[in-house]
């Protein structure tokens, strides 16, 4: 199958710190890709470059054959590449439900639906239902019904994480980049939550890239794994091959304990 997303020769440095050096990755449609690596290895920088938050110093990114390297985040989102965040980015003064409506509103506006002169409650493009119904449906799929009318800022951390991901569903993404979807969640719950997320996301038919530190989770959900170290991809392949790679064992899986927090500031900025 042809690659839906193709990153070629991406380089990015912040002053003396190299956050990405010669990153090459072609992502196939409908695949689920796990991104592993220590903090500061370049995973988030990779996501930030794909979604337009950072411009690579060198290299190009193509999506469905189109060069998206120089597009702004909102334009990249509009063509179907969505992301979630390590630290959930929510509208903290709004309820979970209102957060969803906000996302759906943007989708409607981008499609020219529900403008100033429209009447009644138009359907959200792609969802075939009015925004109010879609919002409830997505909340339900992510198990957030009980938090529907709570302000986002008072929600527990794990719920915020879920809502952050649920928000990306408004735009019906073709590619979804999840930045540490299970961070801050206890080991037992990780599987439950990943199960729910993957089910909800895959139901929409999205290609998924996710960052994860727990190797069990990675091997359970990823079809392919990219291992990052020091701004480079040091291994790329099926979970079994990558996780048994010697370098990966040394720098990623083992290094997990030692390298925590190092270089984090610069590389993530």
């Amino acid at each position: 199958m042809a690659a839906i997303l193709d990153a070629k020769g991406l380089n990015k440095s912040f002053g003396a710190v190299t956050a990405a050096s010669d990153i090459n990755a072609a992502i196939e449609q409908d695949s689920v890709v796990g991104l592993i690596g220590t903090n500061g290895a370049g995973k988030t920088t990779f996501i930030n470059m794909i979604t337009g938050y950072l411009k690579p110093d060198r290299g190009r990114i193509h999506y469905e054959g189109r060069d998206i390297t120089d597009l702004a985040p909102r334009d990249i989102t509009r063509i179907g590449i969505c992301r979630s965040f390590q630290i959930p980015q929510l509208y903290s003064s709004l309820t979970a439900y209102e957060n969803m409506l906000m996302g759906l509103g943007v989708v409607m506006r981008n499609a020219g639906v529900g403008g100033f002169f429209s009447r009644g409650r138009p359907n959200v493009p792609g969802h075939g239902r009015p925004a109010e119904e879609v919002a409830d449906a997505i909340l339900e799929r992510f198990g957030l019904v009980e938090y529907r009318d709570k302000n986002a800022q008072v929600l527990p951390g794990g719920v915020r994480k879920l809502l952050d991901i649920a928000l990306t569903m408004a735009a019906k993404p073709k590619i979804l980049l999840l930045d540490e979807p299970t961070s801050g969640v206890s080991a037992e719950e990780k599987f439950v939550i990943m199960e729910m997320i993957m089910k909800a996301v895959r139901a929409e038919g999205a290609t998924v890239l996710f960052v994860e530190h727990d190797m069990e989770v990675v091997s359970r959900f990823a079809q392919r794994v990219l291992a990052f170290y020091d701004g480079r991809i040091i291994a790329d392949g099926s979970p079994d091959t990558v996780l048994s790679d010697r370098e990966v064992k040394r720098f990623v899986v083992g290094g997990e304990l030692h390298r925590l927090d190092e270089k984090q500031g610069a590389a993530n900025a």
Partner: protein
Amino acid sequence: MTSDRTPRILGAILVVLLAAGPFVPQWAIFLITIALAKGLVVLGLLILLRCGLVSFGQALYYCIGAYTAGMLGRLFEVDGVLTLMLAGMVVAAVTAYVLGFLLARYRGIFFGLLSLAVSMILYGLLVKSETLGSSDGFNVLPSTLFGIRPADEWVRYAVLVVASVVAFVAALLVHRYLKTPLGSLAPAIKDNEIRVEYMGASARYAIHVNYVIAAALAGLGGGLAATTVGHIDPEMAYWTTSGEFIFITILAGTGSVIAPFLGALIFGIIQTVAFDISPNTWQMVLGGALLAVIVFLPTGLWSLFRRRRAT
């Protein structure tokens, strides 16, 4: 889902104003009309405030609206009150469209201070324009409605009718706009601009649009104030005028499109009472009132009504 009562309340207020107008004393009509003019400006600030932006220079557009109305009368003897107001609105909106390319990039205090600087430059230009009466300004021609000048004792009522209808339409349109996907984006921009971008919307574009709308409303208010007061001067662009509008915005709260007009009216009453009961220390009364509202009614006077409705 509760049904939207705002249009009906607005309609009821309009009917009450129009019906009661002939029985209200003239000075009170004037007070109400000025409150409506200021309320229009504050309505614009409400839209911006919902985006988390406070313009310390909204008087710029108020003044542009007023001077446009005044100059049309002075230079071309245009005296149709609606024409004057609409002209003020258009000139303000066009100016805001141009300036918006710069200002929509700014947030927080920097947005406020840059808009302040721009309004002060206009103030300086007007004070330097001796043909426009410099700081003394000039008188605005008495205006007409569809070519008719009502009899003296009905002039104030006629102006009130025009002001009420214009304010009603403006409030209704803004109310509707705030429910559109673009208009409803405001709290999202205030809360989290990164998320707005990653939902596929441009915060800068939304702010630019809102900025133009706010300016148009301020221009409309300025045009109305000019024809109502009958005199305009550069002080309309001075930072203290902007400060007064922000004062009213906070006083009113952003809960509803009705709040700005209510806030402006209450501000007018507080001010005139303060002038009346303590001519020597009215600033203290005004400052105390503002402080009390912020402390006891954190979401503005509007919260009084909301609470009552909930019970």
